[in-house]
């Protein structure tokens, strides 16, 4: 998952970047609203964390511009002004949730997780498909009632695919959302991950959860669980 963090306080920004990278997010950051807007326009993000008190272009303006440009990724606002006028204005401008400073990083992670999941249309923290379920909070995969161990990268690839079920996801999209910019896009690491995932999800090859669409990418192809 690729995140954009716009926060002018260097130390706080560094902490957020570090904590979220530790949580396996791909994170871009900037210290002012204009740069933030440039990045939002340039890259495809899954979510953004935006401070309301930003230099050059304030948070509210930044969010408004992002929304009027047609970008729909969820936005979490950070605000030091713990009053409802600011919160309401922020949410009204197009943000999806707020966190008041100071905060616990865990709270930010939980809120982000919920935002990403909701943006994909899942109301609960567990993504349930027939025979498969991914607990996005505990980062656990259950296949036919058995927990299956995943590496961090495998988890990231699967989560991204499961959050976009039925949609063809190109290799480029996957690498952009899951890896840092300096990642070698030509490597066949992704294919290796997909192969390993297929083995873990579907050891007896009956489910065929991930299709390969030649020349286009991959598609998660399991019907939602009926329960």
């Amino acid at each position, binding site marked *: 998952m690729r995140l954009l963090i716009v926060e002018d306080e260097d130390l706080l920004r560094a*902490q957020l970047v570090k904590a979220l990278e530790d949580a396996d997010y791909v994170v871009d950051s900037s210290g002012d609203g204009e740069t933030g807007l440039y990045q939002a326009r340039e890259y495809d993000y899954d979510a953004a964390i935006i401070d309301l008190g930003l230099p050059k272009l304030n948070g509210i303006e930044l969010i408004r511009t992002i929304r009027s440009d047609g970008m729909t990724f969820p936005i979490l606002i950070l605000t*030091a002004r713990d009053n409802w006028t600011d919160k309401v204005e922020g949410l009204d401008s197009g943000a*999806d949730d707020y966190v008041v400073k100071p905060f616990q*990083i865990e709270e930010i992670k939980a809120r982000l997780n919920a935002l990403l999941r909701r943006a994909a249309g899942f109301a609960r923290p567990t993504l349930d498909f027939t025979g498969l379920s991914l607990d996005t909070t505990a980062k656990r995969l259950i296949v036919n009632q058995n927990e299956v161990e995943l590496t961090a990268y495998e988890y990231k690839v699967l989560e991204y695919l499961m959050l976009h079920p039925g949609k063809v996801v190109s290799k480029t999209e996957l690498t952009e959302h899951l890896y840092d910019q300096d990642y070698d896009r030509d490597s066949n690491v992704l294919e290796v991950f997909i192969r390993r995932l297929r083995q873990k999800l579907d050891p007896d090859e009956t489910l065929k959860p991930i299709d390969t669409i030649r020349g286009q990418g991959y598609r998660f192809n399991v019907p939602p669980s009926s329960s």
Partner: protein
Amino acid sequence: MSPPLAAKSRYSLQTRLVLAFGILLILFLGLAGFVLDRAFKESVAAAVEERLQLQINALIGVAEPDEDGFFLPGLQEARFSQINSGLYGFILDTAGNEVWRSPSALDLTLEQAGFMYQHVEAGQTMFGTMESQEQGRLSFASYGTFWPSFEEDLDAEFSFVVMETVEPTTAEIREFQSNLYVWFGGLALFLSIAQLLLLRWGMKPLQQLATEVSKIEAGEKDQLEQHYPPELQAVSNNMNLLIKSERERQSRYRTTLGDLAHSLKTPLAVISGILQQSKQKTSSGKNGNPESLTELDEQLERMNQIVSYQLKRATRSDKSGYLGVPVKVQPVIEKVIAALEKVYRDKQVTLEKDFDSDAVFRGEESDLMEITGNLLDNAFKYCHSRIRIIIKRNMDHLEIEIEDDGQGIAESDREWVLQRGARGDTLKSGQGIGLAVAVDIVSSYNGEIIVYTSDMGGARICVSM
């Protein structure tokens, strides 16, 4: 609380002026009436005296002595010749004996007329009035004279007396007086009406000023707009300046405190982040004392709560005399609801709304948003799946009721939770300061918050202000 009024003046300016002018009018008209009445009476009396003197002169002019006394042929005044005409003439000697009487006094003796003889020096006239038995009140003039060419045996000094009934002059005076009353009454009426009209005209700017000020107090206007006479224009300008500077001061104060919050909280966030990193390190087996870090974390959280709470409190002051435009409640509460529905999207909360769309809040929009934001946030947070919101007007009051189907607030906690100014540092972590902040703001508008149990099972918070 409103400032203590200085000993309240009992009379309005208008009452004072009406009273003063009324008293002056009564005094002036009374005195003028009295003086005019006196002057008229005096002039009537003088006219009577002059007339009597003329009649005496007429008598003297035609009097001729004869052996019986006097003979007055060819009296010009017909009333002397007509019996009981009201005008009577007598000639008396020095002993007061009647020497002659006019034919009109045929039936009238001096005693009947009530006349008491008094000697009058020759050439002098004495005037007076007397009460007669039959003729009523009479005026008289008695003139003393010598008669030089008189026979020896007759006394040569005589008194010519003329008397006239007062009746005609009394009638004249009465008529004058009733005329006087009519005119003065009319004048008083006219002056009173003129005074009221003048007062109204003169006081109009003051009344306009009072109306405008009360509109500002009611929040229907935000400054004085009318043009006033020069004496008041200065007051009006100064009031506008005062209102403007007060608003600017409040907004500056708020911005400053907001900035202060911002500058305090970001370092708090950084410290909190460092702490968490340290905690992760210590828990992953490196050096450090995880307990002291947890302690630090708790203290940090408390600091944060105190900063939040006190900053919020600092922006509140006495708002009961608020000067500003009233805020429609419904749009504000809808905004807050829209924001909270976004935040609590996962919860699928069902809202029941009963809004009086005309309800207004006489205060600052940000305060209303803070009250409803904090209360609704609690409702969304603690409800199971249902929230009911009612906005209504009760006389001049705004009432907001928010209830949910959550756990509610235990009766034993209610009093504590609603204490105005429950200090931030007595709040335990996780309790939140939302309700305490709402209570503080509502109190600053002289309102109150009461907590009940909702029939839905949770808390029913009633705000009245």
